[in-house]
Every structure is written in structure tokens, then in C-alpha cells.
């Protein structure tokens, strides 16, 4: 289990290594990547993330534990970027290991869905031309 928030570019390999184990036959990974959306304000060229780290990390740990209880046992690792992420860069990375693939897929989907609802991270869209706007996640 590994939970991180930081400004360094995300790498999936350390997350895979953190969840892998002899009891697990499936590892599912998810990368959330910055998309060049065309918004009324312009085309997105970067997302700038900020976090309330203490609260965000505790909620990420809680989500990992819930995913394991509901779908696992599963081992979960989550990392989220802060600062500016350009188009094509990963802003969030998740790796989930479980005995079988169905549990790993379900737990990974649960982790990203809950992260978007519950983790204290915010993003500002920056557009070509210099405008910027805080953009909350859609209510699910």
C-alpha cells in the first residue's frame, strides 16, 4: 500500500511494485491524463492541481482500505500530482493487485470514482491565451 501526493511526474512502475505479491494474479492500473479539452474559454493547455495533503492522504488511505474490503482482498497504491500538468501528462495513477482480474478491475474503478468525489484536491484549467478557471468534478 502506497499513497503519495507530490509535484514530481508520476511513474506507474513503483506503484505496481508496491502492490505486487505472490498471492495476486491480476494487477490493474489506471492513469488519469490531461486532455486538451475545447472549452468556451479556450483550449486547455494545462491543469494546475493543489491539495490539502494531510486530508487528501488520509482519504486516499481510507478509499484503498474500502476497495480492499469490498472487492478484495486487494492491495492499492494511489499517487496524485500537484502543480502544473501539461496535456498528455498523468495527474493521477492507481495500481490495484488482487487474486483475480474481476476484483482488481472493480477495486481500481472504485478507487478512481471515490477519489474524484472525496479527496481534497482541486484543479485549475489553464487555457491557451492565458485565461484560467477552477474546475470542480461533476457531481455523480
Amino acid at each position, binding site marked *: 500500500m502506497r499513497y503519495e501526493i507530490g509535484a514530481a511526474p508520476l511513474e506507474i512502475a513503483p506503484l505496481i511494485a508496491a502492490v505486487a505479491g505472490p498471492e495476486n494474479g491480476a494487477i490493474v492500473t489506471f492513469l488519469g491524463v490531461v486532455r486538451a479539452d475545447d472549452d468556451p474559454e479556450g483550449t486547455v493547455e494545462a491543469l494546475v492541481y493543489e491539495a*490539502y495533503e494531510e*486530508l487528501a492522504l488520509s482519504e486516499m488511505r481510507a478509499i484503498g482500505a474500502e476497495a480492499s474490503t469490498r472487492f478484495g482482498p486487494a492491495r492499492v497504491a494511489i499517487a496524485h500530482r500537484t502543480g502544473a500538468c501539461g496535456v498528455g501528462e498523468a495527474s*493521477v495513477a492507481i495500481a490495484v493487485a488482487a487474486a483475480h482480474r474481476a476484483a482488481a478491475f472493480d477495486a481500481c474503478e472504485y478507487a478512481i470514482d471515490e477519489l474524484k468525489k472525496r479527496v481534497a484536491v*482541486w*484543479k*485549475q484549467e489553464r487555457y491557451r491565451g492565458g485565461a484560467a478557471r477552477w474546475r470542480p468534478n461533476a457531481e455523480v
Partner: protein
Amino acid sequence: MTVRLLAFAGLRDVLGGPKRELSVADGATLADLWAELVRARPQFGPLEGSTRFALNGRLVARDATLAEGDEVALMPPFGGG
């Protein structure tokens, strides 16, 4: 008594900075603190329904009671992922 405010994302602009100290009455709740903020900056008013609070690093409801030196975070809807 004095509490320390943190504000994130768009709420930071409303607060006028990422951190601030605020005096509230002894025994005040988060709801009392919010009312004080709205008095000082009416732009907070329409944000009441969407703002979440953390007290010393934990999510809390707005009936939570404050103590001297508490750290109160004002948080708009999340945008992670």
C-alpha cells in the same frame, strides 16, 4: 479566541489569501465562523452550500465547536483525478 483559516482553490481568492487568523467568540461553532466570514466578505454568502470544512485535518460538520488555535480549512468542491 483565535483560529487559523486555510482556504483552497477559488475560496482562497474570496478569503484574500491562503491563510488568515480570525477571532471568534469562545464556544463558537463552524457555523458561527462562517457567519462571521459572510459579514466580513459577502461574496462567501452564496458559497455556503458548496463549501466543506476540515478541522485540524479532518472533515467535520458545521456544528463542530472550535477551540483556541484550531486550524479550519475552507474547501470548495473537489476537482482531483
